[in-house]
């Protein structure tokens, strides 16, 4: 089975439209890129698109009610919503510093959930 994917390159503002031809899940041809970085990106997107997830989680006794977090590295795009939903039930106790690991190896994806904003402890 062959399929053709049209991918808009995001590596630079040119936004080249790159066509990736796949046969039985293997990339067999790439057309329409203007530079090697674009080709690399298109192949990645066509086989295993990755994204960093950003969200907020409740911070108990913090100076703000929530703290912002992200995945420590990109995770498969089709796992974004699953991770986001999982995090809806996670909270943390203040104080929190930037870089603190909140969840290790989230859903076994090999990425940690780390804080991106500090949250000071306030007495309550």
């Amino acid at each position, binding site marked *: 089975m062959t399929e053709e994917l049209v991918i808009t390159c995001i590596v630079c503002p040119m*936004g080249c439209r790159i066509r990736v031809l796949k046969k039985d899940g293997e990339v067999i041809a790439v057309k329409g890129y203007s530079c090697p970085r674009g080709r690399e990106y298109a192949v990645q997107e066509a086989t295993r698109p990755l994204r960093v997830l950003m969200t907020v989680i409740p911070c108990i006794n913090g100076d703000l009610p929530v703290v912002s977090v992200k995945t420590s590295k990109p995770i498969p795009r089709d796992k974004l919503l699953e991770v986001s939903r999982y995090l809806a039930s996670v909270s943390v106790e203040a104080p929190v510093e930037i870089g603190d690991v909140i969840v290790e190896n989230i859903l076994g994806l090999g990425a940690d959930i780390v804080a991106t904003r500090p949250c000071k402890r306030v007495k309550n």
Partner: protein
Amino acid sequence: MIYDSVIIGGGPAGLAAAVKLAEKGYEPVIIESRDRLGGIPLQCIHPGFGLHLFREDLTGPEYIYRFIDRIEELGVKYVLEAYVEDIVNYSMISKKVRITSPKGVEVVEGKTLIYAAGARERTRYEIGLPGPNAAGIYTAGEAQTMMDMYGVMPGKRVLILGSGDVGLIMARRFVLEDAEVVGVVEILNYPSGLVRNIVQCLQDYGIPLYLQHTVKEIRARNGRVSEAVITRVDENFKPIPGSEFTVEIDALILAVGLRPRVKLLKKLGVRIDPRSHGPVVNDWLETMDAPGLFVAGNALMINDYADYASMQGYWAAESAIEYIENKGLPSTRWRRVVPGENTRLVVPQYLSGLRDAWLYLRVSTPLENARLVIPGLGREIPLIHALPSLQLRLMLRREEIQNAGEELVVEALER
């Protein structure tokens, strides 16, 4: 106490200015109206910050805490929940501002002023959006503050008006919080945001983008927005009869642009450039009308990157130091920068020829394979892909400016 500089606003521009002044041994004070330092990046939890300044891809809070931590290390003074109401009593050597804070009203004095109060969001009234005054209508910044600072969801079925990066980023935020985004509506025939955001914020989640459409009317039920009427528009942005359709929503997010906050500057008699909507400045980022008043960041012009706002903060601080040391900046023959063909805005508006200067500019229409030309300097730069929504900048050398005439036209020409 007379500070070396009173800095109005504690965002990327103001904090960078304060860090530079303190590192060089000067004593600034920051006046910030919110209950914490940081400005807009505090609430921008997505990456895309720091690429120009730190060569790293940081989230907004990670970016701004590099400055906040430095401010604390250096022991820079700041006042929070303090709103600058007025710039009173202005002279060459002393500038006084009146601030209101929980402690009451007080006057703070500085040898120079760095105005870095950022931008305000355009409202539904500025775009003439008819309909009842209902709950559930928020600017993008308001929605972002609710969600990402306070953890409160503005709605569960939202429509976003405006396809700039701000609107696109908000669309993704809502989806990841399990809300439904019924669409992003854009009056132009192309999206204003970066390709990266079109792909990662809309296409990833199958959110429809309605180009050449606008919201014609909103309807409310029980005091909350319940429906939006979307219509196609023609080339003159006039609604096309018969093209309307209605979507059910419980929140409308307005991401229809930012404007430099210039009320205080206007009151002081500072001229405002109708193109940038910010003050008219020279290449010290000093306003042409009030010596020793420097402007940086989104108060000067809308910046796509916090990095640029911070760089303008450094620039304003260096100028303030020169002003303090020499009791004023040298007078000179000014070269006026004139936006020519296809050029929406250029800042700064005046060049001295006494220093190198960055020119920040935007084109006025999408251009492919064009070139940016400054005939007065013989400069020509290729523009492969230019959009009004992409901020451009280029460095001009002091020597080339010195040889220029009274007027320097900057234009973007198709090949």
